[in-house]
């Protein structure tokens, strides 16, 4: 177990390095630069700024300097937000995103798993059909369409919830719903088919033959087996949630990391782009590791190697 975790952490470091390197060079291939659009600045001033941030050096030198800083835990200064370090920005923005993303992930899991189970247990009957139609819609309709529709109907028309910023708790409803919509539907479908598969397994017949109650059969014997595909999906779901938050935070004007990331890309805030990318990559890799360990705990057939 410890050996397995150490191996995975080593692999994670290599992955993060590859991600950082790729982002660094790809980012520099985008036309434009951080100080080009600011008309008021004279060419001399631009040159001075570039010299200050080391942008006048060769790309290779810049890369070595950045990586060296990174090794010492230094993400550098933001190029556009004067006087603020990248780390500072991430630390203030991330909790906002984490709150919305975390709620969305939790809701997707709870709703997806329970509705998927209900559908499987009512196979072919009303609730199964109802849930399946809902799931198909959720998978087919893109997230931003859902966002726009939701904010139009519930915000602009019915004025039930706030659609801008995060004022009170109701302002969380729409962004969380928008992010959770697709994963909930996907998990529902996943859970339904996996539960149907498990319910037909021989060991379920054994459980019944023992005289166990329906609830015990379901919660002890079926659920733990049926949930395995859902656990596998948690990794991709996290990535989806992060990307989804970029759009959603932009639309609902939420001061989170996703919105800040898009602003950074548009403004060619190189250090902030790098910092955010590395941070998110690390987050996904760590969560995937946690999920993999969880999977091994749930399913004893999986070996550590």
């Amino acid at each position: 177990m410890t050996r397995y975790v150490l191996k995975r952490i080593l692999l994670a470091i290599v992955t993060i390095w590859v991600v950082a390197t790729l982002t660094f060079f790809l980012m520099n291939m985008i036309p434009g630069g951080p100080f080009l659009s600011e008309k008021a600045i004279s060419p001399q001033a631009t040159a001075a700024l570039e010299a200050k941030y080391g942008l006048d050096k060769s790309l290779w030198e810049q890369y070595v300097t950045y990586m060296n800083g990174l090794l010492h835990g230094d993400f550098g200064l933001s190029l556009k937000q004067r006087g603020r370090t990248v780390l500072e920005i991430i630390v203030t923005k991330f909790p906002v995103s984490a709150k919305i993303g975390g709620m969305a992930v939790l809701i997707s899991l709870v709703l997806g798993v329970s509705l998927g189970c209900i559908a499987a247990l009512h196979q072919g009957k009303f609730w199964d059909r109802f849930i399946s139609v809902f799931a198909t819609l959720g998978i087919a309709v893109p997230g931003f369409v859902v966002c726009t529709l939701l904010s139009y109907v519930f915000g602009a028309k019915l004025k039930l919830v706030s659609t801008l910023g995060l004022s009170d708790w109701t302002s969380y409803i729409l962004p969380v719903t928008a992010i959770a919509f697709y994963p909930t539907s996907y998990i529902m479908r996943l859970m339904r088919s996996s539960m149907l598969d498990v319910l037909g397994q021989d060991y379920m017949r054994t459980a019944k033959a023992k005289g166990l109650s329906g609830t015990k059969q379901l919660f002890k014997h079926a659920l733990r087996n049926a949930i395995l595909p859902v656990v596998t999906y948690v990794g991709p779901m996290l990535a989806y949630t992060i990307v989804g938050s970029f759009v959603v935070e932009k639309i609902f004007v939420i001061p989170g990391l996703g919105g800040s990331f898009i602003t950074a890309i548009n403004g060619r805030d190189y250090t902030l782009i790098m910092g955010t990318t590395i941070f998110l990559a690390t987050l996904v890799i760590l969560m995937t590791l946690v999920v993999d360990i969880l999977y091994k705990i749930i399913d004893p057939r999986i070996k550590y190697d």
Partner: protein
Amino acid sequence: MSEEYLVNIEHEKLSFFTPAGEVKALNDVNIHLRQGEVLGIVGESGSGKSVTAYSLIGLTADPGKLISGSLYFNGHQVDQMTEKEMRKIRGNEISIIFQDPMTSLNPVYTIGNQITEVITLHTNKTKEEAKARAKELLELVGINEPEKRLKQYPHELSGGMRQRIMIAIALACEPKLLIADEPTTALDVTIQAQILELMMELKDKLGMSIIMITHDLGVVASMCDHIAVMYAGRIVEYGTTDQVFYEPKHMYTKGLIRSIPRLDTDEHQRLIPIEGTPVDMLNPPKGCPFGPRCEACMKICLKQNPPITEFDDTHYTYCWLQQKEAMERLAADSSAKSSGGGEA
């Protein structure tokens, strides 16, 4: 009257209402079994062996419905019982083991967990006591290092070992009846013999009854007191093991016996498999269901289902041929009697 039997199934009719139509899986099935007896149910795949057994333990699969008949077991009228009442006797007074030990245990729980579960469910034993009992059970079914096995998962054990575990689970609450649904079909030949031997040993030790389901008459013959031969949802012949083996009456039984591989006969004697395909249960043939495959099939066989012919208290069959022979014998008897030379 039924009190003398542990199991008494009378005139059971059971159908599966599938989208394609009604499958009459059981047609007037009668089974009775005394405490401590072993009944073999033999027949090819799809003949209704499992359906018969499952209906007795309340495991009939979903589109299946009992149409009529009476199912009695150990003081319970099973066909009248609610699911909640059935749960109390399942795994407790009546247990079942299945064909495939590889898939019958839950892969995500330890052996210990799966054995103690049934003990704590049906008894007042504490967790510790249940664990001690589980260890005892593993020893009983001949598993070495029980302490270690309790902590292992199903995938860490062989098929034969897993079937022993299934037997341990089934016997945990000392049931009156053990149903074994083709318990060795999925196992190697040598393991097969070991498992059957174990079951017989435990039967003698615990005094339970066994319903042994098999499609292979040769394998179980030596351990059964009675044998019921099933074909297309009917018991076509029923008798003591000797009667069925040495005086088979139904053409299907005769075919079955001819198709058993024998080690003691000379090598030139070939096996004779039964020709033809099993009955399509959605559209069963008119008359005797075995008719289309029967080498002795007569005109009447294709028109009318044969009535019962009883040879004595324990031996009966449904075959027109026996009816004819019975009638001839009857005629011969009566003519002998009328001529005054009848035997006592």
